[in-house]
């Protein structure tokens, strides 16, 4: 069975002061890491392969600035057991709207004819949750999003999945290959890559493509790009900002408990 996994390289913003540049955050000093949700998708793909046999192909799209990040992301996937990896780099990537990205992804995946496409349910950076359903339209195959469990029939053609709805409610869905799943966090526990495999992965080839290689007409793509960024900034502060307590931990604790008691929020 052919399993495609989408893995995006996203900037790691943990413990960094973000600054705005060119209508986005300035990523010049940031590291790129695998979109956390995608490690669940990869794990699910690897498990499918282990159960039913076949091949896991990892695909990632970005621009030159993300080349290093994407390379690391694909190597991480290799170290965990992915068989092949392809990246497509294009200088216009960051200006592309979701619909455009889905078209590019469809052009990359089309020739692969995957039975199953797995991806995270949303990117940490843009958080749009658009890729799965849009890719489904572009490839003409079914999609089921936010899955929390995946059970494959022995033939690898039929799947029984659960989807996460609000309030912990699960929707049970049946679907057949070829199809797309977006995974919800917690569907599995992603494996760690062994150090030896990480080292081996650096020697494994990653296919690098351009729009032209994928047979995509830039002008056609541009016609689909109809959403424009006006400005990026920090969300405005709400009225009545939090009272920020400072001092040593002991002083803060004393102040906090005193204040909560005065407000009648603690019973003693």
């Amino acid at each position, binding site marked *: 069975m052919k399993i495609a996994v989408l893995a995006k390289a996203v900037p790691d913003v943990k413990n960094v002061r973000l600054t705005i540049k060119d209508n986005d955050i300035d990523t010049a000093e940031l590291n790129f890491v695998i979109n956390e949700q995608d490690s669940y998708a990869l794990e699910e793909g690897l498990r499918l392969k282990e159960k039913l046999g076949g091949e896991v192909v990892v695909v990632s799209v970005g621009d030159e600035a993300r080349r290093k990040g994407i390379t690391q992301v694909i190597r991480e996937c290799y170290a965990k057991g992915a068989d092949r990896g392809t990246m497509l780099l294009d200088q216009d990537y960051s200006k592309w709207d979701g619909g455009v990205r889905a078209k590019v992804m469809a052009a990359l995946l089309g020739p692969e004819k995957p039975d199953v496409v797995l991806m995270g349910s949303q990117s940490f950076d843009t958080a749009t949750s658009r890729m799965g*359903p849009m890719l489904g339209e572009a490839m003409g195959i079914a999609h089921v999003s936010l899955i929390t469990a995946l059970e494959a029939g022995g033939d690898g053609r039929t799947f029984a999945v659960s989807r*996460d*709805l609000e309030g912990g409610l699960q929707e049970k*869905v049946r679907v057949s290959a070829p199809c797309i799943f977006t995974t*919800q966090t*917690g569907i599995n526990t992603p494996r760690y890559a062994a150090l030896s495999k990480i080292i081996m992965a650096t020697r494994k080839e990653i296919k690098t493509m351009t729009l032209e290689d994928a047979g995509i007409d830039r002008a056609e793509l541009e016609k689909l790009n109809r959403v424009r960024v*006006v400005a990026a900034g920090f*969300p405005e502060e709400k009225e009545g900002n939090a009272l920020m307590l400072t001092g040593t931990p002991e002083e803060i604790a004393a102040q906090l408990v005193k204040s909560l008691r005065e407000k009648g929020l603690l019973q003693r």
Partner: protein
Amino acid sequence: MAILVVCEQRQGELKETSLEAMAAAVSVAGGEKVHALLIGSGIEGLAQAVARGGADEVVIADSPELTCYTYDLYRAVVLKAVGDISPSVVIAGHTSQGMDFFPGLAASAGMPMLSDCVKLSRSGDGIEAARQLYGGKIEVRYALPVPCVLTVRQGAFSSVMAGKEAEVRKMQVDLGSASARTEVTGYETPPKEDVDIEKAKIVVSVGRGIEKKENLPVFEELVSSIDGAVLAASRPVIDNGWLPKGRQVGVSGKTVRPKLYLALGISGAIQHLSGMSGSEFVVAVNRDKDAPIFKVADIGVVEDIFKIVPALVNEMKKR
């Protein structure tokens, strides 16, 4: 021109977010008629509730085949409604179903689409929409031409009670050659849990900042030092199996409205906030001073939870 709001119901229950989407629609309608589309089976009873949310017309697509959501059949219905009404904007809620449905709908209708919008306005001939990126740290404004598809963040728009009359029209549902590639075979409600975090007056909630299961006792000790407090958590803590599912606060967990909510090592992603922003008083401890949780906090502490929590336990013991 017109606006089309696609409402969401499941098993005969209307989603509150649909009324919020309606309020968002009314706010950008600028005189255009607001049509609300209700899809399902045996759902006429919901028409009035939808009308009260501000629709000028409620369109009902009722058919046994539409009882449960399937992307393919719902798409056939909405595309038909789009053909009939020619909306400048299609608006709906950014729910689990909304996430599954609208990006594909937009692609198949050939319209640009933005999800999870927190602000909307008319701008020239098009729409300006704001949404949040990087876990709520950045807000970006976008311009879209019409016609377009927009989904709105749950809780970002306040539903209104328009109290006006709306026409109710039944739509001819002719699914023709459409067939569903997915089939809903049932629903599963989460198992009942030991503690009911929804009823607690004080909720001490821990996030990924606790780092590992072995650190839980630190926080359990705090909980036992506060009368009436229960321990809850953000989703990653549950995903990792450190606490049972019934302790999860947020959109895919429980909604709590305690007198006091203590958020420890929680960043404040929207899916978490929507489960706790109804709390009367919020205290947040996080070592990242830009964490979005501080935006909903009444008292904030920028510090290491492993320093603050033991100090809090000591302080509580002083009486």
